[in-house]
């Protein structure tokens, strides 16, 4: 049996997290045997199917086309996954808002208990996953015949986007449930690298005091090619959009360099960034818990230190 990866895309291109899920799938196939297949369900998403066929390690792309798959609605995608699942030992997706939305719905229809957000594969049926905001690591074994799993992107390298030559096979739609309708979206526009895959992330917290002050972080980000993130407090206060939130209930990042500016370091925030390679904290409170995980801590007023940092990067 093979491993099926549910691919996330916007009908034009794959989302980067798919590549991390493919790596996890290849690892699973190493334990369970079989090939890695990708499901691309979309509306006029032929280009995505072709892109998926290039990913190293993918043996086959299943392409389902229909308006019912145009916006990733879980009510329509889940029955399609159910229809395909019997041929697979594992059905997986990245633990993105898309994967978290769709995969448990498919699992329930299959009478399977899914396993969320795994950070390691121990064997075909045994996985490691963080619980309690990463305060504990659970090793769990699934006894279901098909295993439905979401993958923590930062825990698995991205597969090579090119080098593969999978066959693209079309697969029939499972129909439109008509249960819900996509009305529209307000996506955050940014020229910066994507937060979860960026090599450098600079995040601001409540200490930033306003959304306007994030301009200071943007200047530093420009010089470093960094993505911008935030704590929950900064998002709740309306400084920045919701999709900037890093943490237990936001995005998980693990860049080479994470700069926490005016962030205290609550456990819920740490859950989203403590696997970063190098952590820098700038905070005026020397007792701030963020310093307990920071490789380099600077006790300073950020309104002085951040412009200084920006200037120093020219040197």
């Amino acid at each position: 049996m093979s491993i099926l990866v549910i691919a996330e895309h916007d009908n034009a291109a794959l989302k980067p997290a798919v590549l991390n899920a493919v790596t996890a799938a290849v690892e699973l196939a190493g334990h369970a045997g079989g090939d890695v297949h990708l499901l691309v369900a979309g509306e006029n998403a032929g280009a995505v199917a072709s892109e998926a066929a290039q990913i190293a390690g993918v043996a086959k792309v299943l392409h389902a086309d229909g308006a019912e798959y145009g916006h990733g609605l879980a009510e329509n995608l889940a029955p399609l996954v159910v229809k395909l699942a019997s041929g697979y030992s594992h059905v997986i997706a990245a633990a993105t808002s898309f994967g978290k939305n769709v995969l448990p719905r498919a699992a329930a229809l299959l009478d399977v208990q899914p396993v969320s957000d795994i950070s390691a594969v121990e064997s075909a049926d045994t996985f490691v996953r963080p619980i309690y905001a990463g305060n504990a690591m659970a090793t769990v074994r699934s006894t279901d015949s098909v295993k439905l799993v979401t993958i923590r992107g930062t825990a698995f390298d991205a597969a090579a986007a090119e080098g593969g030559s999978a066959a693209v096979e079309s697969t029939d739609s499972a129909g439109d449930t008509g249960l819900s309708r996509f009305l529209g979206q307000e996506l955050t526009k940014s020229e910066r690298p994507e937060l979860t895959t960026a090599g450098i992330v600079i995040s601001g917290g409540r200490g930033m005091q306003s959304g306007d002050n994030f301009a200071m972080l943007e200047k530093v980000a420009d010089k470093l090619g960094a993505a911008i993130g935030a704590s929950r407090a900064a998002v709740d206060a309306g400084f920045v959009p919701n999709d900037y939130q890093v943490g237990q209930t936001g995005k998980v990042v693990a860049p080479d360099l994470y700069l926490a500016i005016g962030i205290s370091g609550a456990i819920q925030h740490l859950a989203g960034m403590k696997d970063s390679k190098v952590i820098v904290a700038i905070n005026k409170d020397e007792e701030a818990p963020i310093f307990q995980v920071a490789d380099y801590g600077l006790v300073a007023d950020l309104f002085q230190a951040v412009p200084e940092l920006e200037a120093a990067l020219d040197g």
Partner: protein
Amino acid sequence: MKVLVPIKRVIDANVKVRVKADESGVELTNVKMAMNPFCEIAVEEAVRLKEAGTASEVIVVSAGITQSQETLRTGLAMGADRAILIQTDVALEPLAIAKLLKAVVDKEEPGLLLLGKQAIDGDNNQTAQMVSALLGWSQATFASKVAVDGDKLNVTREVDGGLENVNLNMPAVVSVDLRLNEPRYASLPNIMKAKKKPLETVTPEDLGVDVTPRVETVKVSEPPARQAGVKVASVAELVEKLKNEAKVI
């Protein structure tokens, strides 16, 4: 329209969780418990729907040990009308909880289920999606805005790229995110009043649901510890270290 709000009792979000020495789980004895924060947001939203005249009755339901009654009482003190405890000592998984909730829904016939997007203990983020599937209802996860529009529901969802708007057939299942509302604190008079509100207890057997776990916990261990590093005295020293020591810029 009745609104059903499934709520979970978890370790309080402010408690530092500790792994047990025998790696069988996390320490729960003498640890402060509370309603899962996302469930508080769900209760708040349901109570606001009732205050707006959209909902006729708010029912809170929790599956778990006897002490989950305390969590249900908190929900009642926030403004729910009555409570159902599905009492069991079995450690429940989202699939089992979804089945139990479906059985309650079949009996109560609510028009809307509001759940938290995630319980902060297991961090599963599954139950809403699963109960919606079992019911064959529409679903909107990670809601930051919910508005009833005749026999439809408009929901704004927090997604990875920003926000998404969907229109759901009712009945519907919604899981709530942090920005939906700010939950109220229960006032003392309301806490007193909540003690007299009805709380019914049923068991998984009463509901005809098999709750045998499908996923076995092999062990629960400490995460890899991170060492605190050094304090630098100036921005210049920081930049120097990042360039020459860490070599990340």
